[in-house]
């Protein structure tokens, strides 16, 4: 009974104050659309840097005449290091096959195999690559060199760190801005109706009786705005993304943004909470009659 009454009161006030309702809904829509876009873009970039970081590895090249014993001893040593995630042995023959595949012209005239066998060692995190390389200082017997692309690695790590930071700060700013903007719009709509609230209180309406419809109204605006934002994002994703992505070389199939349903859920939840809490908090001031 009471819920029905709240809903009919909320609905009547939505219709009676259509312009402020539309303004609040549009504010939610714009804020949530931008936030959604940013989350999608940000998580995609983070996932991309993650993928790039995975390619950071230490390569241990042996002398071409290294004995099997020397190779094995390095292999068993690797197994004891805590930083190591996986080790792949590339024999001289494997190296040649790979080379032939990549550069058929260069390798066509070769009589023998000039390539050494090697270990490709992947560290648990990209940052550990330096420590890992340091463990082979000085190089053990039979090892010709230990390489990890010092400059490239450092560059990748630095860029990844900056991108992560920018994404985090940007999200916080955008989230704060939308919350403040939405709360402000709600505040304006309530402020324009403070006389009405005063009358309600004077005829004996309890605080919850006044608050109920307003909060419900905030929820309706939040829901409507965020759903439209989600629909727009979906359209953008389906229509615009493929033509853009066609031009960007994707470094791996594992690169992806946060899943769309999850982003949609976040947006709707944020709007609902902001709508309801924004109305409730703003009302407090006007209820003290």
């Amino acid at each position, binding site marked *: *009974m009471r819920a029905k009454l709240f809903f009919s009161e909320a609905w009547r006030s939505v219709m009676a104050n259509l312009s402020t309702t539309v303004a609040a809904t549009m504010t939610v829509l714009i804020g949530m659309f931008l936030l959604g876009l940013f989350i999608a873009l940000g998580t995609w970039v983070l996932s991309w840097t993650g993928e790039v970081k995975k390619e950071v590895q230490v390569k241990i090249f042996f002398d071409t005449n290294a004995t099997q014993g020397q190779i094995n001893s390095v292999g068993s040593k690797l197994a004891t290091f805590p930083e190591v995630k996986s080790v792949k042995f590339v024999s001289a023959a494997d190296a040649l096959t790979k080379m032939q595949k990549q550069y058929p012209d260069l390798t066509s005239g070769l009589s023998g195999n000039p390539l050494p066998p090697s270990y490709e060692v992947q560290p648990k995190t990209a940052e550990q690559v330096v420590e890992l390389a340091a463990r082979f200082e000085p190089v053990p017997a039979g090892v010709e060199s230990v390489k990890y692309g010092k400059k490239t690695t450092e560059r990748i790590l630095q860029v990844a760190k900056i991108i992560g930071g920018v994404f985090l700060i940007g999200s916080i700013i955008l989230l704060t801005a939308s919350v403040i903007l939405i709360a402000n719009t709600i505040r304006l709509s309530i402020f324009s109706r403070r006389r009405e609230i005063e009358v*309600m*209180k*004077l*005829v*004996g309406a309890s605080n919850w*009786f006044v608050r109920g419809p307003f909060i419900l109204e905030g929820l309706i605006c939040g829901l409507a705005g965020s759903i439209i934002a989600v629909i727009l994002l979906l359209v953008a994703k389906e229509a615009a993304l493929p033509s853009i992505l066609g031009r960007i070389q994707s470094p791996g199939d594992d690169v992806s943004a946060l899943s769309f349903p999850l982003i949609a859920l976040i947006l709707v939840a944020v709007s609902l909470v902001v709508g309801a809490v924004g109305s409730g908090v703003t009302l407090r001031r006007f209820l003290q009659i």
Partner: protein
Amino acid sequence: MAGNGAAPDQRAAGAPMIVFESVTKIYEPRVVALREVSLVIDKGEFVFLVGPSGSGKSTLTRLLLKELDPTNGRIIVGGRELNRLKRSKVPLLRRNIGCVFQDFKLLSDRTAFENVAYALKVQGESRAAIRAKVPEVLGLVGLAHKTGSLPDELSGGEQQRVSIARAFVNHPPLLICDEPTGNLDPDTSVGIMQLLYRINRTGTTVVMATHDREMVDKMRRRVIALEDGQIMRDERRGGYE
């Protein structure tokens, strides 16, 4: 309020409707609106509060509704001590006090019917009860034919009748009127006063703050005159001066 509504002729019997015990109200920092005011109003009385602007009439009515709390002193309305009344119980208090204001305070986007119905809705009255009570009380104030009109479509006198209907629809034991005729022409005011008089005769205590000298002199009811926050005069069958 305190149990059964008192019958018209039991004025002196039982507990009084309103008791002020040396009530002082100071608006910070140092505006004294009421100074040590003590008074008793019995059930079923019709009382005029008179005095120049700023004499404390409005403060007194707002204290009765617990819109304000007194700085000092005790206020008892219908057996409830307002100082001890919890915030959450204030709506209950107000449902037992009808109020009528100079500026009507109607909800402008609702019809006469809906404005009156709102006072019933807030206390969870059923739809059937609302449909029965609202036309009845609108008929009582003489607006049976205007139930579907918005406040803007009504004259000042009609709007005030709607607001009286809203105040009276619960049949509260106490009706507080703050300058109900302040915005109305003399002829319309007479109609409003007759309405309030009829409501008073059903046993409802009426407290009316007013500037309307002529009306007070004609009615010959109890008059409490305030000046500078103090009671200057309290007469059983008084005039404005």
